[in-house]
Structures are given as structure tokens and as C-alpha cells.
């Protein structure tokens, strides 16, 4: 609209020209600023990645050799096993293509039903596609506070 207005009247003089340039700059800047404000407003805030240490279970509750499943606040599951030497918490998501692994008592290992991935109690991949790609089950850090176990999880909060 302002472009039309400019071209419609052939005003003369340097002063008129300066005024018109100032006008264009002013209106253009307004458009840019308002656009900028709207853009900043609409663009989502950065997700807050919160590292939290939360209660898992009393250490006495964790079975030896067998992975006990615990539901985590983000919906995932941690398979917690006392391997004899340490207590390990593993994600139950297979690193190959995301299927859920389960514990096979007979073999004493974690098995993925989709493509036959096999993992040791401590999460090391020993057979199937995960072993070929060298990807083990993801570990959660476990810490011991008194007689209880706490697990480190990462939560993503979208403000």
C-alpha cells in the first residue's frame, strides 16, 4: 500500500525524498519488528533436559540373576538385575530397531524377539544384529543410598 502511495504522487525535492525514505525505513522496520516478535513468540522454547535421581527400589528387592522390570516416569522400563558383582539397570529397548527385550530364565540372558538379538545380564550384546553392530543395551546409572537404590534418569520437559 505504501508503495502505491509513493508512486502515485510525483513529489519533488530532496526534502520530500528524505521524508519518503524515512517513511519506508520506518514502516519497513515496524513490519520487521512485529514479525520478529511474532516469530520469537511462536517458536517453541527449548526443552529442558532434567537429570533426576529418583528412588528405584530397596536393594534387597532386586533379584539375583533375573531382571526385574521397573516402570520409569517417562514411560520407559528399566530391567534391574543383580549380576553378582554389581547391580545393573538396563533399558529394555533393543538398540537394533527398538523392540522390547525380555529375560529368558533358561539362557540367563536378555533376548530380543524381533531379530534374535541376545544380551548378557550386564547388557552386552553377544548374538544377533545388535552384536554385529556392536550396540549394547543402554545402561542407567544406579547409586546406592543406604539400603535403597536410586536411578539416574533424564526427563525432557517442554515448557
Amino acid at each position, binding site marked *: 500500500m505504501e508503495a502505491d502511495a509513493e508512486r502515485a*504522487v510525483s*513529489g519533488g525535492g530532496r*526534502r*520530500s525524498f528524505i*521524508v*519518503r525514505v*524515512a*517513511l519506508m*525505513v*520506518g*514502516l519497513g*522496520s*515496524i513490519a520487521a*519488528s*512485529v514479525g520478529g*516478535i511474532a516469530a520469537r513468540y511462536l517458536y517453541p522454547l527449548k526443552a*529442558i533436559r*532434567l537429570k*533426576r*535421581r*529418583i*528412588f*528405584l527400589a*530397596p536393594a534387597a528387592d532386586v533379584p539375583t540373576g533375573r531382571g526385574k522390570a521397573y*516402570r520409569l*516416569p517417562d514411560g520407559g522400563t528399566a530391567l534391574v538385575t543383580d549380576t553378582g558383582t554389581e547391580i545393573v539397570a538396563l533399558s529394555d529397548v533393543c538398540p537394533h530397531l527398538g523392540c522390547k527385550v525380555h529375560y529368558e530364565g533358561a539362557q540367563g540372558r536378555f533376548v530380543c524377539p524381533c531379530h534374535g538379538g541376545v544380551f548378557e545380564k550386564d547388557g552386552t550384546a553377544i548374538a544377533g544384529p545388535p552384536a554385529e553392530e556392536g550396540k549394547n543395551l543402554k545402561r542407567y546409572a544406579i547409586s546406592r*543410598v*543406604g*539400603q*535403597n537404590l*536410586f536411578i539416574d534418569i533424564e*526427563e525432557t*520437559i517442554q*515448557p
Partner: protein
Amino acid sequence: MTLDQKRMIVAALSFLFLASLLVVAWVEGGKERIHPKPRPVVGADSAKCLQCHEQKTPVIAAQWTDSRHAQLGVGCYECHRADEKEPDAFQHEGKWIATIVSPADCGACHQDIAREFQHSHHSQAAQFIGSLDNVLGEVIEGRLAAVNGCWQCHGSTVAFAKEKDGTVRKDKTGKPMLDPTTWPNTGIGRVNLDGSRGACSACHSRHAFSRAMARQPEVCGKCHMGPDHPQIEIYEESKHGIAFRTRLAEMNLSSESWVLGVDYTAAPTCATCHMSATRNQPVTHDVGARISWTLRPVISRKLDEWEKKREAMKDVCANCHAPDFIAAFYTSFDATVEMWNSKFAVPAQSVMDALRARHLLTPTPFDEEIEWSFYRLWHHEGRRARMGVSMQGPDYTQWHGFFEVAERFYFDFLPKAREAGRGDPQVTRALKAVLDSPEHAWLKGMSPEDRAKIDAFYRERYGAETVK
């Protein structure tokens, strides 16, 4: 208005508007975006508890939700779970739980604190069963006075309610019932069914278990108050207490780390001196770790390893006070306690000893007036005087303290002792030994010259009409 004039106005207005947008951007930049606290983490079992208890006991649920425990996923079941074999365990909605969460339960996570606490004098608070105080409360006043009075601070011994045949009474769901004279009770020395001693919730009130609350003097003041140990009143009178009250906002009470001189500098609380961390000491739940005197008994004495404990206390003082200041305080403090000992405590005790040795008192405690007089002297007035000086409360040292000690000693205890002595030579000797000592010589009489000096002072200071 010409077209060009209009153009100029539009251009000018545009820049004015742009300037206002700059202000908007500046305001936006200055805004502190306070993100809401992350959601509490509720385990599957505790979630089931909350389903009902959010309606039935909404304040418990709400207090827990806002607490630090909730952020860590330590919920209802994590604390209240109990082994089937535990005597007070019962089944509730499919799970074995217990009502009382004892220091042993808290200690499952808070191991060091629980251990320190079990070693402290606080955990022994209920261990005065054989004492005179116990007789006073349970027998002379009436058991329920002890139940709802003494034991509420000192702690009860939790027991089951019993049927007539001696078995544990159970309600219709099979839950074992606790004896109502022993529970509810959050006395600091409560003897729990699992053998542990204490109630963490005495200071860390449930279910928020707030750090900030536990650091405040009011929490200690529930019990450490009153005619026989007015620590909270003394603190409030002292400069420490004044500093605290007037600079409360700067105390940083909710901070996780609460190191004197680092996280806060405004004022000390009870916790500051007796428990909390300094740059050189970690926090301790053994409240006696920095105390050198015991001001409790008739005759005060230094505790075991008192030098080490005093150094620990001085380490706290040194954050605000210079070494000379601290040294002079302790010199004066020690001397005042020694004065109490030598001028009043030892003499009074010696008189009582004489009366007992001569069988002039019945074996029954508190059945004679002299016993009450002596009790008040050392258990109430004498303690007030000593504690007043220990925590820099001058009025408690003087008017609630030594003034009342003197009045009691000279015009209540000694006359009653004379009467109870009935002229017995040993008692009379003991009384004479007391009155002959230089501190009590004033009783023999003041000289007329000294009296005249006093009258002259009043005449000069307050006017002739004040002296008759």
C-alpha cells in the same frame, strides 16, 4: 496539512512506535522465566495410595506432593512398607504396611543421620523412667499428665493395646491397635516397636519433611522451653535471636547446602551452633557433639571429651566472633556455672544429704515441702540461671535466674531445711557451714556505713524523697 507533512508525521510516529517496541524487548529481556517445579515422581504403589488418600487426607497428599521426597520418587509406599513379620505390620489394599515410620525406616536411606541420632542424647530422651521427674509426672500428677505432657516431648514407649487376656487388640480389618497412651507420639526419644529410638518427624514434621522448618528455632522450642529449660526464651532474648527474627528473609533456610558463612551469614539458629555445618565441620545429628557442660544436674559438671566438644563449638562461634571475644565469654560462662555450683548447689545438696543421712526425710519423694523447694532451686531456677548465661540471655541469667535462686535459697530452702532439721546437730552443722562461707556472709548483716552509702546513692540519683 500537506501530504509531505503527513508523511513526516507517519515517519516520526513509526520511529516512536519502534522505540516503544524496543522498550517491550527490554522488558521481555528482563523477565525471569520461572519454570514450574518438575512433576513429582509417583511410583506405581504410591500412586495407588494417592488415589484414595488424595480425597481422604488431601493435606497429607498435598504436603507430600510439594516435598523433596516427591521429586525423588520417595512416596507413601516407599516409607510405609513393612515386612509381614514386623509386629505392627498390617495388610491394607493388598500391601503390607505399618503406620509408624521409625528412624530405622528413615535410616534405610538416611543411614549416617540415623546412626548419629541413635548415639545422641536426643534418642535417650525417654530414658528417664526411673527418675524423680518420672515419679512426679506419672505418680504424683497422674499418669495421663505424663502421657500428654512429659512423654510428648521426651517420647513414649510405643506399645500395643491389649485385650483382657493379654493378646494384642486388633480392629475388624485385622490391624493391630496401638495403645492410645503411647501413640500418637512424636517425642524425640520415642522407643519404637522395632527397637530404634526417636522420631525423625519431631523436627522434620511430616509429610513435607522440610529442611527449612527443621532449621528454625521454633521447632526446637516445642520442647526446649518452659520454667526448667527455657532455651527458646533465652535465645529469643539474646542478640542471636533478635538477629534471626529481624533478618529472617536472609536466612536462606531452604537451601540444600546450609553452611554458616557460605550459604548464610545473617544470624545463628539453634541448629547453627548445635548441629549445622560450618566450613570445617559437617552437619551432625548428635546434638551433644559441641556441648562441654551438662547444666542438667544439681551440680553441673563437664562432659566426657569436653575439650574436643568445646573446640567444635568454638569453631562455630569463630565465624562471627573474634578469638578474644570467645575466650572471654567461656571464661565468664565457666565461672558463672562454678559460682552456681559452689554458692548454691553444693551447699544445698550438702544440706539435703545431711537431712537424708539423719533420716529426717521420708523415703517418699515430694511428700515434704523441702523437697519441692530443693527441686525448684536446682531443677527450675538454677537451670534457668545456668542456661541463661550459656546462651547469652541476661534477663534469664539474672531475674528469672539468680534472683529467684537467691530468693528461693535464702528465704525458702534454708528456713525449710532448718525446720526439717529439727535441731539435729549434723544438719545444724551443715547449715552453719553454708552460712559461714564468705558468699553467704552478707546475711550476718550490713554495716551502717555501707547502708548509708546506698541511701546516699538513691538520694542523689532519684531524689531525696526516695529515702525515708
